[in-house]
C-alpha cells in the first residue's frame, strides 16, 4: 500500500468504527488500536514529509479532477500540522492508556479517533464544505468527550460547548452557502481564484461569518466562553486534545480561509487587535483562577491570542512565528494538561490550594509541571522561548511596539500565576500522601514531550527549517491556487 495523505483521514476514521467492534471481542485490545493507528500515521507523516516539502501533493478523491471532486492538499503547511497532530495524538494515546480506565473507554478511544480524523481532515482538505464536515465531526466528538466523565460539571460544560458550537457551525455553514452562491464552487483554490469577482460587501459579510464561526472554536474573545469550562471539565487528556489539536486545526482553517480569500491588510490588523484583547483578558482571568485546569484553559486562550496576533501581522516571519508558537504550545500545553491531570488525580481536588507539597510526594509529575510552566512562560532553554521571541520580533518588524509591550505584560501575568502553582507544588508541606503511583505510560508520555520541548529549545533550527516553507505556503496564495487546481494542465480555462 503506497503512502498517501488520504490515510491521515481514512485510517483513523476506519479505526473509529472498528473500535466498538473490537470492543465486543476484547476490551484490552481496544486500547492498543489507537496507538497502532497513530504510530502508523506518524510513520506516514514522517515519510510523506520530505515529499510534501518538495512539492505539494494534491490528491483527488473519487477520481474527479479539481475543481469538481474533493481534493486533499498536502503542502508543507499541512505536512507540518499533520505531523504535529499525529505526534501529539500518539502521546495523548500513550497518556490515556492508563489514565482513561473508566468504562466505557472504548467509546473514549472511538471519539478520540474521530477527533484525529476531524483535525487531519480540516488540515488536509481542499474543499470548503468538506472542511465544514470535518469541523462538525471534531465538534461532536469534542462535545461528547467533554461530558465523558458523566459528572455534573462535565455535562454542563459540554452543553455550553454545544450551544456555542452550534452557533459556530451555523455561521460557518452560512458563510459557505454565501460563497457557493457567489462563486458556485467549493474548492478552496477555485474559490480563491473567483473571490476576486465577488463584491466587497459580500466578501466582508462572508468574512465576518467566518471570523465569528471559526473564532468560536479558535477561542477568540469574546467567543470563548465555552473554552474554560470544557477544558477544565473534560478528562485531562481531552483538555490536551483540545489545546493541542482541535484549536490548532481550527486556527489553521481560519487562517487558511482568511489568507486565501480575503488577503487584505485591514482585516489582518483586526486580527492583531482581537488577538491582543483575547490574550490580555485571558491572562488576567487566568491569574485569578482557583482551579488548575481552568487556569490552564485560560492560559491556552491567551496563547491562542498570541498566535492570532502573529498571524494577523500578515508577514512571512509573523506567520512562521505563529506556526512555531502553535507547535510549541501544542507540546507544552499538552505536557501541562498531562501533569495537571495526575496532580488533580493525586490530590483528589481540582483546586490549586490542594496541590501543596505534591512536589515531594510525586516528584516526577510535579517536575513535568514545573518544566511545562517554565517552558510556556517562554524561558530559555525551552522551546517556548524561541517562538515568543520570534513573535515579538515579527511584531516589532511591523512597527507595533505597543503590541510588543502588551505581549510582555501578559507574559509577566503568566509568570505570576504559573509560578504560584509551581512554588506551591514544591514548597508547601503537604498534609497527606497519596500511595497511588503515577503510571509509567503517563510518565513516558510526559517524558517524551519534555525531551522534545528541550530539544527544540536547544536546536530551534530543526523546526524552523520546516516552518519557513510552511509559512511561505500560507502566504503565497497564487502558488496554492496553481497547484491546487493543476493550472499547468490548463483546467482553469473552463469557466464556471
Amino acid at each position, binding site marked *: 500500500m503506497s503512502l498517501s495523505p488520504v490515510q491521515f483521514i481514512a485510517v483513523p476514521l476506519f479505526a473509529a468504527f472498528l473500535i466498538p467492534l473490537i470492543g465486543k471481542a476484547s476490551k484490552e485490545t481496544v486500547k492498543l488500536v489507537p496507538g497502532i493507528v497513530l504510530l502508523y500515521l506518524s510513520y506516514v507523516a514522517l515519510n510523506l514529509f520530505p515529499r510534501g516539502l518538495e512539492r505539494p501533493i494534491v490528491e483527488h478523491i473519487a477520481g474527479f479532477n479539481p475543481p469538481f471532486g474533493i481534493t486533499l492538499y498536502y503542502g508543507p503547511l499541512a505536512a507540518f500540522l499533520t505531523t504535529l497532530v499525529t505526534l501529539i495524538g500518539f502521546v495523548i494515546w500513550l497518556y490515556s492508556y492508563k489514565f482513561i480506565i473508566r468504562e466505557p473507554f472504548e467509546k473514549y478511544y472511538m471519539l478520540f479517533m474521530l477527533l484525529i480524523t476531524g483535525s487531519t481532515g480540516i488540515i488536509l482538505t481542499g474543499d470548503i464544505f468538506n472542511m465544514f464536515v470535518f469541523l462538525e465531526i471534531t465538534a461532536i466528538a469534542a462535545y461528547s468527550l467533554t461530558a465523558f466523565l458523566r459528572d455534573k460539571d462535565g455535562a454542563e460544560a459540554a452543553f455550553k460547548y454545544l450551544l456555542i458550537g452550534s452557533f459556530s457551525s451555523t455561521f460557518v455553514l452560512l458563510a459557505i452557502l454565501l460563497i457557493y452562491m457567489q462563486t458556485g464552487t467549493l474548492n478552496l483554490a477555485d474559490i480563491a481564484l473567483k473571490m476576486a469577482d465577488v463584491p466587497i460587501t459580500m466578501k466582508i459579510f462572508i468574512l465576518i461569518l467566518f471570523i465569528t464561526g471559526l473564532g468560536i472554536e479558535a477561542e477568540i474573545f469574546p467567543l470563548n466562553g465555552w473554552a474554560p469550562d470544557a477544558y477544565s471539565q473534560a478528562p485531562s487528556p481531552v483538555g490536551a486534545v483540545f489545546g493541542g489539536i482541535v484549536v490548532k486545526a481550527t486556527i489553521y482553517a481560519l487562517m487558511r480561509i482568511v489568507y486565501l480569500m480575503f488577503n487584505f491588510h485591514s482585516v489582518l490588523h483586526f486580527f492583531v487587535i482581537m488577538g491582543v484583547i483575547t490574550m490580555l483578558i485571558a491572562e488576567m482571568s487566568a491569574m485569578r483562577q482557583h482551579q488548575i485546569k481552568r487556569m490552564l484553559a485560560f492560559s491556552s486562550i491567551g496563547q491562542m491570542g498570541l498566535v492570532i496576533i502573529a498571524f494577523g501581522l500578515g508577514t512571512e516571519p509573523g506567520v512562521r512565528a505563529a506556526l512555531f508558537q502553535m507547535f510549541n504550545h501544542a507540546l507544552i500545553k499538552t505536557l501541562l494538561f498531562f501533569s495537571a491531570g495526575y496532580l488533580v488525580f493525586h490530590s483528589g481536588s481540582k483546586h490549586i490550594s490542594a496541590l501543596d507539597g505534591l512536589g515531594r510526594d510525586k516528584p516526577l509529575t510535579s517536575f513535568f509541571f514545573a518544566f511545562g510552566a517554565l517552558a510556556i512562560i517562554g524561558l530559555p532553554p525551552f522551546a517556548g522561548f524561541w517562538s515568543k521571541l520570534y513573535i515579538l520580533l515579527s511584531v516589532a518588524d511591523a512597527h507595533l511596539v505597543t503590541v510588543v509591550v502588551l505581549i510582555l505584560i501578559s507574559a509577566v501575568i503568566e*509568570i505570576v500565576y504559573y509560578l504560584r502553582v509551581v512554588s506551591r507544588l514544591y514548597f508547601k508541606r503537604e498534609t497527606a500522601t497519596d500511595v497511588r503511583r503515577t503510571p509509567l505510560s503517563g510518565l513516558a508520555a510526559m517524558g517524551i514531550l519534555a525531551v522534545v520541548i528541550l530539544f527544540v529549545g536547544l536546536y530551534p533550527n530543526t523546526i524552523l527549517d520546516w516552518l519557513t516553507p510552511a509559512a511561505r505556503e500560507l502566504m503565497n496564495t497564487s502558488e496554492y491556487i496553481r497547484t491546487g487546481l493543476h493550472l499547468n494542465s490548463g483546467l482553469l480555462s473552463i469557466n464556471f
Partner: protein
Amino acid sequence: MVSLTTLYEITFGGAILAFIAQHTIKQLRTFIVIVTSALGVYIVWRLPSQATDISFRLGDFQILWGVNEYSQLFALLIAVLGFFTLIYSIDFMKERERLGYFYMNFLIVIGGMYGIVYSQDLISLFFFWEIMTWSSFMLVIYCCDDAQSIGLKYFVFSAIGAYAMLTAIVLIWANLETTSLSVLFENFTNLSSGLQITVIVLFIVGFGVKSAMMPFHVWAPDAYAISPTPFTALFSGALSKMGIWGLGIVLLKLAAQSGFYVWVQDIVAWIGAITALLATFYAIVQTDAKKLLAYSSIGQLGYIIVGLAIGTPLSIMSALFLAMLHGIFKAMLFMSAGAVFYRTGSTDMNEVTGLIRKMPWTFLTALFGIITVAGVPPLGGFAAKWMLYEATIQSGHYFLVIVLFAASTAAFLYLYRFIFSLFLGQEEKEYADIKEAPLTMTVPMVIMALFTLVVGVFPGIFINPIGNAMGYFGNYTFNWDVSSLLNEWGNHVDMMTVVMTIGAIFIIAAIFITIKNYRTTRYVTTKDIHTSGEIPTENENLTYAVDFYKPFERAIAPVLKRSIDKTYNLIAENLESAFDFLRYVYTGNGQTYALYVVLFLAVLMVFAELIFGIQL
C-alpha cells in the same frame, strides 16, 4: 580543549550529572559539583590565551560568543566565587534535603552567568540571562514556605527587567536588523534619537533590576535573606554583577554615543547615590543579619552604579574595582553570617550574641569584611572608595559626593551592628557549646579575607586587569604602581606606605600591650563587668541588641516611613482586583456566551458598515 563550548558543556553537564547523582550515587554528587566548578575556574583562566570566537546561526540570528577582557574580568569573579561558595556549601548544605535540585540549579546559575558575559550578541545574552534568572529563582524558593511570595516577587521584577531588555532587543532588531553587539555599537547613532533614548532607558531598567537599582530593588532584601547562604554569597557577589556588567556596556558603549549622555549620566548617578543612601538607612534598622547584608549589597551596588554613570576613567576604574571587591567581601560576609546560622540556627541579631570566642575564624572573616565594606584602610575597600570619591569630586558632582559620603558614614552603623550583635557583646549560656564552623566553610572564608588585605596593600593587582578590561570601552591607560592610587588632580595615596605605617604601629602597640599584660591579666566572662558599681546577677540581661540604633531610627523616621515596597503591593492588589472584575465576563451562563457570539457578530457588522460603508 579549552573553549567556550567546553565551558558550557562542562558546567551545564555537571549540573545535570549532579542531579542524576543525587538520585543514584549520592557520594558522587559533591565530587561532581566541586570538579565541575574547579574545571570552570581552570577553563576561564586559560580562555583568553586559547579560545577562539564561536559563531553559528540559530534561526534567523547569528550567535556570537567571544572572550574579551571586560567579560574575562567578570567571568573570573564568577568562576572563583562559584568555586568558593560551592566548597562552602559542602558542609553547609549537608543536612538539607533535595540537594540534587540545589546543586543543579546552582551550577546552572553559574553556567548562565558565564553565558552572559561571554555572549557577543543580544540573543544569546538574553537567552543566558533568562536561564540565570529562573535558576536563581529556583534557589530563592528552595528554602521554605515564606520563600514563595518572595521568590515570586523576585521573578516578577526580574521578568519586568528582562522584558524591558527584550523590548530593547526587539526594537534594535526591527531597526538595525542585527543582534550583534559590535554591530550595534557601530550603528547605534544611526537610530533616531527617540529610539536611542528608549533603548538606553529600557536597557538600564533591564540591567538595573538585577543590580537592585532603586526603585527596582524591593525584591532584593527578601530574596537575598531567604535564599540558602552559599547561594546568597554568589547571588550578591556575582549574580548582581551581571546587572553591573550590562550597565557598564549600556552606559559606556551605548549612552556615551547618544546626545543624551550627560542627562543619562546625571540621572543614573543620582539614582545610584540615592540607592546607596536609602539602602544604607534601611540596613541600619534591620534585625536579621542576612537582611542587613542584603541592604548593604544594594547600597554597594549603588556606589558601583554611580561610578559607572560618572564615566571618567577613574570612576569607571573605581566602579569595576568595587564590583570585583564587592563580590569577594560580600561573599565573605554572607558566608560568615551563614556559618553563624549553621551553628546557631539563627541570624537574628537580637538573638545571637557573643560568638567571637566560639568562632574566631568566622569572626576574623566578618571583621575583614566589615573593614573592607567600610572602606577603612588598610584593606581593599579603601582603594575603591577613595577612587570613587576622587572621581566624583573631580568630575564636578559635588552634591553627589556628599550623598555618597553620608551613605558610607552611615554604613559604619550597620556594619558595627552586624559584627557586634553576632560576635561581640554578652556571651550567653545558650551558645556555650557552639563550635567553630567546619573547615570547608572557614577555609574559603579566610582565604578571601586575606585576599582583601592583599588587595589593600597592592591595589595594582586589581587595577591592572581592570585597566585592561576598560580597553573595551575606549583607550584608558592606568600605568600606576602596584601599590599606589592616583587621582586626576595628581594627588595620590601610596598604599605601601600606609600599610607599612599601620602595620608597624599596630605590631609595636600590640607587642607592647601584650608584653605588659599577658602575665597579669586573666580572662573573665562577660558577666563579670562593672555596671556603675553594681555586680550583675546571673540572670540579669546584659545583652544590648534590640533597637540598637533607636535614636538614629528616630532621626531618620520620615525616610523609613515611606516605602516603595508598600506602593508596589498596593499596585499589585489593585491590579488583582481589577483582573478579578474582568473575569466576571465569564458568567457561567451558556446563554450569555451565546449572546456574546451574536453581539460580536452584530458589532462586526456595524463596524464593517462604518469602515467599508457597506449597506446590509
